[in-house]
């Protein structure tokens, strides 16, 4: 589904990604871990098409297409979803209104008719249940005055609404209390299928108890320096990053 080869990117002349290689197949869940500032959010942004980052080398193939050639909104309509580490506030625009616009543009792209108000409401109710989010929150201005946890839950609600093929969750677990973490993870698990793939960026093994990954990768200084199964996350939890850092420096 997603094939990243030797991807490098910079911002303001500062090199941040230094040759990333990653293969993600439909049905898989990949976890990306790594110390602060190692480039995890940058990788997510580059995949989503944020223009501030300049791709300086490498290729990304997504469902047989050259992902890097698509505009950010085209990528989204093709099924790439990013749950933001820091969701943005849009005053005066409710989540409902925002999602109605998004869902219908995605549908149009797929050659489907727009949803009428009744079917949209039906879809919304179904997805609200999935992430146990309250409608009163969705009536409010998007993310404005939301608590950290509410913002994250809202991101997963949007993911549920848009049914992406490739979802990238950037630290969706940070800011969630224990109960919310379970609910969100549960929601994500229900959205897992053999047709879609998920990349989870996280600092904590805890989330991976709920969303069990097929692979775990460690990003350090803009490179994937170690990959393994779900036990790698446990090892990191126990030992920290120092041993990986020194391993990486030696290489």
């Amino acid at each position, binding site marked *: 589904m997603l094939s990243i080869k030797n991807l490098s990117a910079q911002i303001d002349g500062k090199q941040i990604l230094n040759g990333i290689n990653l293969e993600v197949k439909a049905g898989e869940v990949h976890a990306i871990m790594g110390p602060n500032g190692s480039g995890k959010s940058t990788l997510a942004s580059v995949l*989503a098409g944020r223009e501030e980052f300049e791709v300086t080398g490498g290729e990304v193939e997504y469902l047989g297409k050259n992902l890097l050639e698509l505009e950010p*909104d085209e990528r989204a309509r093709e099924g790439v979803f990013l749950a933001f580490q820091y969701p*943005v506030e849009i005053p005066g625009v409710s989540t409902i209104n925002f999602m109605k616009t998004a869902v219908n543009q995605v549908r149009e792209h797929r050659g489907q008719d727009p949803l009428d108000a009744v079917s949209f409401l039906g879809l919304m109710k179904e997805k609200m249940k999935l992430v146990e989010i309250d409608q009163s929150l969705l009536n409010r201005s998007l993310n404005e005055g939301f608590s950290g946890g509410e913002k994250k839950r809202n991101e997963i609600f949007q993911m549920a609404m848009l049914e992406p093929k490739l979802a990238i969750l950037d630290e969706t677990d940070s800011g969630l209390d224990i109960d919310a973490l379970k609910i969100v993870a549960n929601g994500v698990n229900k959205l897992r299928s053999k047709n879609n793939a998920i990349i989870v960026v996280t600092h904590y093994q805890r989330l991976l108890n709920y969303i069990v990954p097929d692979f775990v990768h460690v990003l350090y200084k803009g490179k994937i320096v170690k990959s393994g199964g779900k036990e790698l996350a446990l090892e990191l939890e126990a030992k920290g990053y120092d041993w990986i850092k020194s391993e990486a420096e030696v290489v």
Partner: protein
Amino acid sequence: MSKDNQLLEELTSREYEHGWTSDIEMESAPKGLNEDIIRFISAKKNEPDWLLQWRLKAYRTWTTMAEPKWPNVTYPAINYQDIIYYAAPKQKAKPKSLEDVDPELLKTFEKLGISLTEQKRLTGVAVDAVLDSVSVATTFKEKLAELGIIFCSFSEAVREHPELVKKYLGSVVPMNDNYFAALNSAVFSDGSFCYIPKGVRCPMELSTYFRINAANTGQFERTLIVADEGSYVSYLEGCTAPQRDENQLHAAVVEIYAMKDAHVKYSTVQNWYPGDKEGKGGIYNFVTKRALCAGENSKVSWTQVETGSAITWKYPSCVLKGDNSSGEFYSVAVTNNYQQADTGTKMIHIGRNTKSRIVSKGISAGHSQNSYRGQVHVLKRAENARNFSQCDSLLMGNKCGAHTFPYIDVENNTARVEHEATTSKIGEDQIFYCLQRGIDEESAVALIVNGYAKEVLNQLPMEFAVEAQKLLALTLEGSVG
């Protein structure tokens, strides 16, 4: 929420969509302004002598006045002798009903989405349609008459209800109020008149639709609304003009007189031709709008969505004379390309316990200049006056300008006046967030801007809100990225 989406889906046309002209046989006065032209206009309309004298007095006053220079706008000097002051569609006889109206004329309004055939789309809205200098048709007149409501063209009001016109004309905006009001008083050709009797709640929206069609013609219409004790009316005004290379002058006057316990809501969606991308052409919109809250507990709300015109000079105001009366001003003003807007309000607190509320949302894009100018004046006897003002500016790009000129003048120390102002830029982050959800850039801008202006748009009647949202989006198309 469905209206938003409808808006986004309809976002297809790129340029000013009302820029066409209609081919209608016209009758007009020669260019230029002098007492003979005024006599000509008055004679064309078979006016009584008192009105002719009133016009002539206004004209003489005007010749002693100078064009105001304080607004934050620049434009080449206007040659007032190069303008046609009267143009009217030629019609054999005065139409008695819609069937008698020139089909070309009806088509003109159909094209604008304004149906004058009553059973159609705008059921629930009575329309007075004004093309160039004259009122073309007024709908739902009989139905309104059953309630004693008078809604007709200004000329008809002069003929049928001279006592009302004589009593209230100039009672809120005196003929010598300002340069453009004096000009309008001298040459106004038509407009709408509305009277709501005591205790009557007008059951439908009343609406005037203005269209400038003829070239080199100025439009000078006058609207007079009189709301008797305890009455209520919601009034809408819309306007468009063809795309022309030369500038055209529009100098209107709107007067609202609200008696005890009366409530008037006046909404405008102003969409005059703004000129092209280089700033060529467009309407000069110099308008005086004022309401007098004469009686106790009276209330007037102005809501305006200003998207058109090359230059806008307009300050819908409230004179709060009656005790406990209140005035509101909700405004969204969008400028793009080389448009200039200097707009705002005046709230004059005279009575006790008077309240006013100002919410102004400016949006500037391109090379445009957008100024808010507002005055809150609390007079000595206005015990316990309250004002709240909120003035926000949103900038798109870095070649445009936003300016705020609040004037606060308090002569009574029991007054409480609050003023808040913010300036922000439309965020790359916000746009990227929308893009990431599959929303294209134009729609993203429309969504963000409509969100920003929501508090004002919410004040508009539904029918108008949809149109206003579309207009905001259209005005700003191509201004990001």
